[in-house]
């Protein structure tokens, strides 16, 4: 409880800087690798990396609210779909470059997050969870009945030709997603290491006590909800180009909602690298299973992993490694 606000924390314990240079450097290094290798390796590996990075963004976004503040968002697929359909709507209006579409998707999905939060965050956390569940259904109904973006018929989004200096459009998508993942992780780190993260953690541990000691609870939660929605929307924005044909069932896919929750929980929700680790581990496992076991058993494994982790290792991989290191030290 000492870390409730910066003024109260003892000066001896210096926090790491909110901006993480190592992550920035690592992210840029990955982009550089993608730029040099992208034209040579099989497209399969690019697509594989794209999916995993998409999950890194989704689970990092989910964790800003779910892990730091303890509010569970079931509506990831809804926010993701809002991102998808923002791109589609913009594409129908004019030839908008992808980065701009991503920004727009972030704004729209962020506002929807803000609105939902504003309506329900004053209640117990579980009401928020149920509201997000309902939100996804309402959004899907709206999209189904909105013929401009294809409605129930779905919409075709043709992949444009490759843009220089990229060898293929898939490579371009991958680089864009890498940058997005980097931004999401940097944002999560910044939150985690600043007074915002402290405040959110206080809310998670005891909301009443936090409010009583001066944490601006509602405002912090709204900030987290907005960011969470925005990142999920941004993760969805390039998806139409990935899949070329989007209809409501594929945009509002359950796999998205499940993974966005399972990945941070398996990785560990306490730190920024928990969701990243979870997304990489689980995302990679799923992709490998798709082309090996290749049956419904694939999803069964995700379910079992999730149950095993929350019962036996509630702190996730992060917690296990920490406990292990602690024992060795």
């Amino acid at each position: 409880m000492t870390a409730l606000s910066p003024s109260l924390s003892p000066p001896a314990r210096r926090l790491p800087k909110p901006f993480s240079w190592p992550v920035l450097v690592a992210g840029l290094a990955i982009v550089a690798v993608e730029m040099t290798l992208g034209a040579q390796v099989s497209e399969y590996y690019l697509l594989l990396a794209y999916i995993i990075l998409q999950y890194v963004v989704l689970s990092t976004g989910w964790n800003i609210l779910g892990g730091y503040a303890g509010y569970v968002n079931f509506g990831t697929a809804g926010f993701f779909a809002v991102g998808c359909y923002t791109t589609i709507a913009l594409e129908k209006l004019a030839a908008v470059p992808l980065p701009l579409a991503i920004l727009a998707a972030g704004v729209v999905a962020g506002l929807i997050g803000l609105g939902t939060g504003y309506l329900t965050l004053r209640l117990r956390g579980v009401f928020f969870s149920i509201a997000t569940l309902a939100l996804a259904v309402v959004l899907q109904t709206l999209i189904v009945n909105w013929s401009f973006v294809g409605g129930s018929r779905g919409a075709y989004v043709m992949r444009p030709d490759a843009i220089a200096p990229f060898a293929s459009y898939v490579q371009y998508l991958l680089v864009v997603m890498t940058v997005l993942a980097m931004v999401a992780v940097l944002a999560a780190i910044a939150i985690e290491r600043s007074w915002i993260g402290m405040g959110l953690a206080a809310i998670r541990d005891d909301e009443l006590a936090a409010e009583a000691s001066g944490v601006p609870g509602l405002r912090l939660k709204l900030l987290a909800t907005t960011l969470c929605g925005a990142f999920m929307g941004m993760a969805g924005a390039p998806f139409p180009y990935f899949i070329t044909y989007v209809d409501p069932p594929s945009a509002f896919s359950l796999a998205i909602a499940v993974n966005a929750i399972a990945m941070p929980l398996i990785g560990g929700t306490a730190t920024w690298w928990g969701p990243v680790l979870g997304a990489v581990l689980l995302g990679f496992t799923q992709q490998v299973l798709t082309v090996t076991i290749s049956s419904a058993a694939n999803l069964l494994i995700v379910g079992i992993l999730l149950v095993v982790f929350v019962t036996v290792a509630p702190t996730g991989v992060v917690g296990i490694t920490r406990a292990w290191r602690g024992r060795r030290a």
Partner: protein
Amino acid sequence: MNFSWDLLLNAVTSGIMLGGFYAAVAVGITIAFGMLDIVNIAHPAFMVLGAFLAFLSINTLGIDPFLSALGFAAIAFVFGRYFYRAYYHFFERRGDDSLQGLAFFFGIMFIVEISLVLIFGVDYRLIDLPYLATTYEIGIVQIPLRLAAPCLAGVAMLVAIQFYLSRTFTGRAILAVAQDLEAVRFVGADPIRTKEIAFGIAMASAIVAGVLLIIIQSVEPSIGREFIGRAFAICVLGGMTSLPGTLLAAMILGIAETMTSTFFGPSWSPAVAFGLLLLTLAFKPSGLLGR
């Protein structure tokens, strides 16, 4: 849309019959989530499990689904008790039941669903009971038994549970748990055992609801997801801990759905139901009957 009394009365009747079934689905949520504070989002998955059990029992053993429902409910009750004990051991005792518990049920939902896929495949299954094929006509109102029987069964189950809760010692202890966990100790009941029994009842009700489901419509393993939102909506609308409130909310949701689909075009009916939920959460979180 051209209005007529015929359509209106029939829409309301259909809505009530649908609502009776919704009540059967939601009663378990009201007990688990409303009273015990356990966010069992796997409830509808267990319901689908019940549907497949009924399908299996009528096609291999030839047992009438309404009869087998009772047997399965008894098994589910016992299973539910152990299930709660495990849940208590792993989550409530540790004190981190909100987030981890949710994720736990999420995983359970998946395991149940995929196991059904692996065992039964993804075909739609249906039970067609010859004795439910008749449709009664009372004046201009049509009452197909296929919908009326599950509605009656659902309402009967809800009423029976309500009686149990208000008339027996354990039942009252469950209601007391819903209000205040510590209060239970004063009346001399073991709170864990009380919650065990309550969760067992919730689990049994899920299985019964599943048997009703497969009589009403074709069922495939992942169909339970469609009911998660509806069931929680009903529970919240009904005021979380009240079974009469649950029944009322279920009826309102059922009628709202059939009215929209009769008069405005069914495309919008999910938005009506969930819009109602969002509004309730925003403006009257204590539910319809709440103070």
